């Protein structure tokens, strides 16, 4: 009997899990925190300072945010490579969602790498942490603003539709009716997150 390996299964399930916890949860938190910008630069900057002042902040960031995102993104790119898109032959709704999930995943991953570099890593290197003002300045560049809008839309879609995949991958939504219901719910989540994220962005512009 050949030896059996289950690592690819666990890697894939871990990929699904990280998408929701912690990454999905973090995205909600991130949009929420950034919404403090609606109260003006002082409030926002004080919240940033609060988070930056948390004990073990770098460890928390690395283990709960950066590594999961890196894993989810890198493994996601591998998944994209194992697929063979056939949306034009089989133009069913879910097949489009499948394609979009991959597309938005790659866009979001690229955006997040840029975003983390620009707002966090560059700060670590230069000692100049991101602030309301620095973010606002960079958003003056319409290309960067467009990239932010695209990044937020992609992440929101990817989370909402990813939630649908998550509920199926974990055997929570099983029946046809349940899947249809959950599918609608997930579209709402996508839309809600997009609105949430764009609103937060708007306070910086």
């Amino acid at each position, binding site marked *: 009997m050949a030896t*059996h*390996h*289950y690592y*690819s*299964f*666990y890697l*894939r*399930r871990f990929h699904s899990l990280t998408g929701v916890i912690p990454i999905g949860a973090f995205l909600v938190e991130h949009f929420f925190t950034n919404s403090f910008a609606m109260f003006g630069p002082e409030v926002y900057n004080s919240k940033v300072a609060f988070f930056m002042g948390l004990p073990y902040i770098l460890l928390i960031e690395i283990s709960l945010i950066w590594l999961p995102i890196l894993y989810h993104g890198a493994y996601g790119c591998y*998944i994209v*490579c*194992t*697929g*063979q*898109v*056939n949306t034009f*032959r*089989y133009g*069913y709704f*879910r*097949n489009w*969602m*499948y394609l979009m999930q991959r597309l938005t995943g790659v866009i979001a991953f690229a955006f997040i790498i840029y975003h983390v570099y620009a707002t966090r890593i560059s700060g670590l290197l230069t000692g100049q942490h991101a602030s309301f003002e620095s973010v606002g300045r960079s958003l003056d560049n319409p290309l960067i603003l467009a990239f932010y809008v695209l990044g937020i839309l992609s992440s929101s879609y990817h989370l909402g539709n990813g939630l*649908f*995949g998550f509920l*199926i*991958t*974990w*055997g*929570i*939504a*099983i*029946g*046809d009716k349940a*899947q249809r219901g959950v599918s609608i719910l997930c579209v709402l989540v996508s839309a809600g997150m997009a609105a949430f994220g764009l609103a937060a962005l708007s306070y910086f512009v």
Partner: protein
Amino acid sequence: MSDKPIRLKIKRQNTPDSSPYWEEFSVPYTPGHNVISVLMEIQKNPVNSRGEKTSPVVWECNCLEEVCGACTMLINGGVRQACSALIDKIGRELTLEPITKFPVVRDLHVDRGKMFEALKKVGAWIPIDGTYDMGEGPRMAPKDQEEGYRLAKCMTCGCCMEACPQYNSRSSFIGPAPTVQVRLFNLHPTGAMNRSERLETLMEKGGIAECGNAQNCVRVCPKEVPLTKTLAELNKDVDLYAIFGMLKK
């Protein structure tokens, strides 16, 4: 309109290694044709639309009533059974191609041996002690029988495999059809005795985790096998087993 001929464009290939080419045919229309009967007309008059003699088209078919699964091909770009593709419904302009996920034997005839190999891999059978008279089989709730029957109607035609974006040469996924058969044997009282072995095969490389949830499978299945529902159900079984079953080891 009524005497407009049926026009076919067929992707042909002489040997497994040679390159494909297109050949066009024209067949007089009569009501009631399907793709098989049109191909049969070409056999009776193997002349292409340029008037050249050619060899009859090679394809696979058997029952012609959509229970054997043999005549799967791409018809106007989509995968389906040729026998149930009625000309009066799909129109008189036809493009026929071999399905793309399996090696071509000749013309529209492909080798779907991989599907049967996958059934071996997942242990798609009830392990009985022997065929001697050993009394009755286990009782089964009609509800379970109905679910099992829906899965047991899978005729290994390969439509779901063809439409699945995750089943291709770059991925090791065994595809929707063989995966879903695990559920059939796991819900049978005797088959359930080997439930964990089958779930373990779905945890291996090529197993259920490689499903990408595009759900084309259920849309193209000619037998209405509840593929996506069963995949979700199996996800639950496999996940619980992957967590709690493995912790027993």
